[in-house]
């Protein structure tokens, strides 16, 4: 008796203390939520919504089916859950010793066991059957109107339009550098935070687009939830998936397979445009590419090459080596680096082939002029004032070695 009394008093006092603490915690939480509200953010159409509870609104047939299947499964599972745990909680309430319930003595029944084996079996097979058609449809990448190769790099995407209207277009698509810096500052802002890229993939509406994935270094995954696609991009292998977007708009996704340090910073942005807009985009992109095509034989002036190199550096190198060249830890600093200052051949070799088992990726995909420009930039920036110049022709030669 005394023991139970003691326990009861203990419980009461502790409970009241607990209640006080809960109230405090709620206040703290409320305060946190208030500071949080200051960082106002809105839904991003085609990307995540604020506190979104379900899958993205789909804009492809596969996406619609995935959505339907998920909702269907959710309803069935909740129904089973309620039924099974209804029984359990009924039993917990009624069949307890404290209400005087005496234990029954049954402990087996073959017919019941057979019933609750066969019925779930039928249910799961039926569930599988519902999904089968979608699985087959998902994997049917034939008869595409447009084929685009998506190549995963650490840490950006490369898009090459290899068949269909726009054939021959190719570009890299990386996170906007300002977003990476915002992340480091710890004070992010914006509805498209970490989802803004420099060059989105552009595709026409209502056309079957086949995406071929591969990767340059490690496995990445190309995911766009609204389009209902996620496909690993595997180095040395090609895989494919497809979508036919039924609505014009911008759709966002992110890399979905751990690919190293900057895994969180290689978003995907697909812009779906009308057929006419797509044609004019292709036209513009082709002209732009023709204009940008560099003659690797051209002799550059230092200032022009440094200016060009700064753009290349910010788009490709700044994420790891920092805009001020003062990276730390396993990533080598470029500011004051002996290799950068005194070893032009060694630096070019590292750029072309990578280093540290790919921790520094190979940058062969950059053009000769771009590599020459970025090397020259690093030799003439920050505290590096060598005045040395590396011409594109030297890169052409280095590539042949």
């Amino acid at each position, binding site marked *: 008796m005394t023991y139970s009394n003691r326990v009861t008093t203990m419980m009461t006092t502790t409970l009241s203390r607990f209640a006080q603490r809960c109230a405090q915690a709620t206040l703290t939480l409320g305060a946190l939520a208030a500071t949080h509200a200051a960082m106002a953010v809105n839904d991003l159409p085609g990307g995540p919504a604020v506190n979104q509870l379900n899958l993205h609104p789909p804009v492809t047939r596969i996406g619609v089916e995935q959505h339907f299947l998920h909702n269907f499964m959710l309803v069935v599972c909740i129904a089973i859950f309620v039924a099974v745990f209804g029984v359990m909680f009924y039993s917990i309430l009624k069949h307890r010793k404290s209400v005087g319930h005496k234990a029954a003595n049954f402990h087996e029944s073959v017919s019941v*066991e057979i019933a609750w084996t066969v019925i779930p079996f039928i249910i799961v097979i039926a*569930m599988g059957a519902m999904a089968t058609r979608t699985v087959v449809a998902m994997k049917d990448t034939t008869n595409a109107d447009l084929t685009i190769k998506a190549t995963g790099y650490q840490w950006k995407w490369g898009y090459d339009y290899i068949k269909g209207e726009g054939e021959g277009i190719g570009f890299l698509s990386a996170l906007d550098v300002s977003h990476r810096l915002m992340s480091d500052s710890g004070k992010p802002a914006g509805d498209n935070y970490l989802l803004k890229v420099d060059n989105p993939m552009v595709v026409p509406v209502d056309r079957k687009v086949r995406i071929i994935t591969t990767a340059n270094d490690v496995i990445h995954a190309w995911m766009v939830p609204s389009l209902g696609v996620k496909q690993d991009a595997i180095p040395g292998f090609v895989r494919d998936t497809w979508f036919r977007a039924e609505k014009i708009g911008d759709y966002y996704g992110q890399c979905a397979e751990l690919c190293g340090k900057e895994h969180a910073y290689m978003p995907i942005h697909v812009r779906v445009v009308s057929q006419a807009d797509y044609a004019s985009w292709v036209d513009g992109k082709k002209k732009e590419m023709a204009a940008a095509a560099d003659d690797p034989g051209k002799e550059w002036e230092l200032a022009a090459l440094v200016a060009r190199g700064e753009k290349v550096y910010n788009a490709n190198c700044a994420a790891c080596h920092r805009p001020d060249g003062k990276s730390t830890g396993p990533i080598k600093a470029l500011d004051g680096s002996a290799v950068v200052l005194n070893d032009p051949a060694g630096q070019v070799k590292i750029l072309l082939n990578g280093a540290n088992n790919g921790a520094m990726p190979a940058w062969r995909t950059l053009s000769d002029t771009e590599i020459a420009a970025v090397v020259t930039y690093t030799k003439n920036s920050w505290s590096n004032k060598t005045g040395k110049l590396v011409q594109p022709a030297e890169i052409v030669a280095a590539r042949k070695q």
Partner: protein
Amino acid sequence: MSAVLDPHGHASPSDHDDHAHGQPYGWRRWLYATNHKDIGTMYLLFSFSMLMVGGVLALGIRAELFQPGLQFVKPDLFNQLTTMHGLIMVFGAIMPAFVGFANWMIPLQIGAADMAFARMNNLSFWLLIPAALMLVGSFFMPGGAPAAGWTMYAPLTLQMGPSMDVAIFALHIMGASSIMGSINIIVTILNMRAPGMTLMKMPLFCWTWLITAYLLIAVMPVLAGAITMTLTDRHFGTSFFNPAGGGDPVMYQHIFWFFGHPEVYIMILPAFGIISAIIPAFARKRLFGYTSMVYATSSIAILSFIVWAHHMYTTGMPVTGQLFFMYATMLIAVPTGVKIFNWIATMWRGSMTFETPMLWAVGFIFVFTLGGFTGLILAMAPIDIQLQDTYYVVAHFHYVLVAGSLFGIFAGYYYWAPKWTGVMYSEFRGKVHFWGTLFFFNLTFFPMHFLGLAGMPRRYADYPMQFADFNMVASIGAFGFGFIQVYFFLAVVVPMMRGKGEPAPQKPWEGAEGLEWEVPSPAPWHTFETPPKLDSSATRVVG
């Protein structure tokens, strides 16, 4: 007097004149331990300390994810935290905890004097210590700990620093330890049962561990193979998984998950056994469908070998591959459902009381089933295309590994610790621990379902602003969850180890059955030195 730590509290070995060898005291007792109870205790303490280490790493992750933007850790350290959290929890916390239970309870439950291979038992425990030191120590190596995820997918592993090799070595050692532990358990169960304890009268905990031990022996060498190939790819110029030399990174995933899927059942089957002991004890009614429980467990084990590629739907499997693995995976729901139904039928029309072990057991059934349902949803290939590698998966496997395995471990602790220590835990503190854990667990992991559905990828150090609120809730929950486990250790475990509390009767639970309740509390240092004579149900000693 400490009951667990001091053999004087037991019928001390020196009381036994017929005992030929001298009994080591002090540190020798633990370093040279061959007694299954001592080794079981060491396993449990080891796994709890690993739980704390892995928990601190998890809190590092959650602190960083409390708000968008990078506040505390840089992305490379973040990846090290996720990787090491996974490895330490799986190989350091959950698996050794169940081996600790096996060591303590299997000889007591089958009426054996000790484990079959007492010295190998010692070795399999002590191997864990250097392995754990290497794993944890890898944080202090140049370049930091491995950061390729606990799944260690190639070719990312090829980019890792020297700590990757250390982790591979540590896993080899832990694998060897697990295999030796499994051999010991199998031989003990098959050879050392007391006369009359037939296989089909054996407690379900022994059954589930017998099946688990076979799974371990089957798959640990597969993991060893996968990581050895990774090692030779890194240093000896082979190209098993290195695409630069014509290797196949997807092959690594096939091999890894051929280990990895049975591994998840290795981590849950012993918990099923614990729950199957507790539910009948507190319902005061025999376990419903004992035979079907044995068959269901075996079916789960067999099916676990043919479902591995459901972790790989997005690698680009052909249609037939996706369909096969989808149907095979969904089939696992059938035997798992049978177990849930059997437990509920055991509770049905029983005479239930809800002491702490029963609360954990009911909590286990309730929350584990939630994880089972999300597993069913993930098994559907088209839905998995949306959810693979998002927080939905993180939510799913924490519902089955924390609310499943860890809840099972806690249930077992409260159920059997009075037998180990000779004192009762504080019922009030046990309940605080249970309700606190249940609340904070759901606060942490339930919002992750929403994050995953909204497409937030896992292993991200930073995320779009729209995900901020749920991440904040999850982080708050995680810290609460962590603190309540510290409370458990300080308020429940430590007092019991120091022998503080009401003395435990030989059988503290009215409805409990089994040979472990036929020996005094605390269990003497040596039990069943001569095989006991059993009654026809093999649950009581008759002479």
